[in-house]
């Protein structure tokens, strides 16, 4: 185990932790907005940590830039879809847990 391996492992584990937190939030929070909040924030950070872990592991400039691109596209997709879902929920749905549960 070299230092890079250690750093990679730490970053990946941290990333998985955020994903786990996001998923728990998705399952446990009461309504759409809380869920989106948990999901997007935690998952974006999780993706960033996983990507940077892999970047440290590879160290090649090409791979690193590809990973950066993946993170950016992931961010963009998450942002826009969270925005659309939130807007739809805001306009059309009551925010009680049962209703949002139905729509998921």
């Amino acid at each position, binding site marked *: 185990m070299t230092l890079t391996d250690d750093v990679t492992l730490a970053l990946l584990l941290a990333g998985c932790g955020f994903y786990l937190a996001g998923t728990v939030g998705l399952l446990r929070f009461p309504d759409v907005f809380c869920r989106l909040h948990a999901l997007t924030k935690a998952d974006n950070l999780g993706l960033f940590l996983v990507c940077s872990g892999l970047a440290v592991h590879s160290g090649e400039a090409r791979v690193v830039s590809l990973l950066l691109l993946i993170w950016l*596209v992931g961010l*963009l*997709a998450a*942002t*826009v879809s969270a*925005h*659309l879902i939130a*807007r739809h929920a805001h306009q059309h749905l009551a925010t009680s847990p049962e209703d949002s549960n139905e729509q998921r």
Partner: protein
Amino acid sequence: MTLFLLDGLIVVGLVTLAYQAVSSRSLFRGIIHFVVFGLTMALAWARVGAPDLAMAEAAIGAGLTGALMLVAYRRLVEGRSDSPADPAPAQSRLALPIAIGSGLLVGVIGLSALFSEVEPAQAGQAVLSELQQVDLGNPITAVLLLYRGLDTLLEVAVLLTAFLAARAVAGADGGEGSATTPAPETPMVGALLAVVIPLTVLVAIHLLRAGSYEPGGAFQGGAVLAGAGVLLILSGRIAATPVAGPLIRMGLLAGLVSFMLIGLVPLLKGSPLLALPGLWAVYFIETAMMLSIAITLILLFAGGGGLKRGRNG
């Protein structure tokens, strides 16, 4: 060990998702499970050493099949407040025994095929040894275009036939279906499209070009391109029309027609049918096929015969 765990996780996921897809409470959930099943299948292909299939499965199997199912679901819910009638599963006492029996049969067949002592396949060996002579690094592209070209040609014909048959049974509303009702405009969508559409086109072209020496090719590229089209339809930038304009018609047929015509030309010189006259022909046909595949899939999604500029376009 870790890899074995990963495989185990994928396999358990596949089975669970498949079961959920056919038996979950609501149809909508079923669709979602099926899409995730497709994505997990892509992981499985990557694990058994088939990256081309992984890409195809992710783009076509999960992505576009899922989109088509969602849009069909939407047509079923159209004009009703409740979710579409989803009759209770048939009570069949035979279902479980038959399912277990056929699963066992397939398992026995599969395992004995896997562990039977066979020579490496002649056809595969021939492909790998012939491959030295042409400048195509990806044996799968070589098989699809050079050695088993007729399969690929007819496969593009199958896709076209599915489209024509779907058009033939389309209802009177054919064209202006609800799939084309765009979401209300928001600046976020514009920003997304401005970034994602060029990027998707770039990825499609990359996949097409990469197909000759590494995983990728016309089908994967076409499916990714179709994804961009689906996004444009959903955001109301383009919309379906009942009848296609000349440009769309040309695009729809480009792959099949160019493959047939280029395949017929060698006959004039006394060469065999489908003996492609050089690698340029491979690239030309692949590009045309990618366009046709993308347009056919987009039209199938839109549920129309043609495309026009949409409400938000």
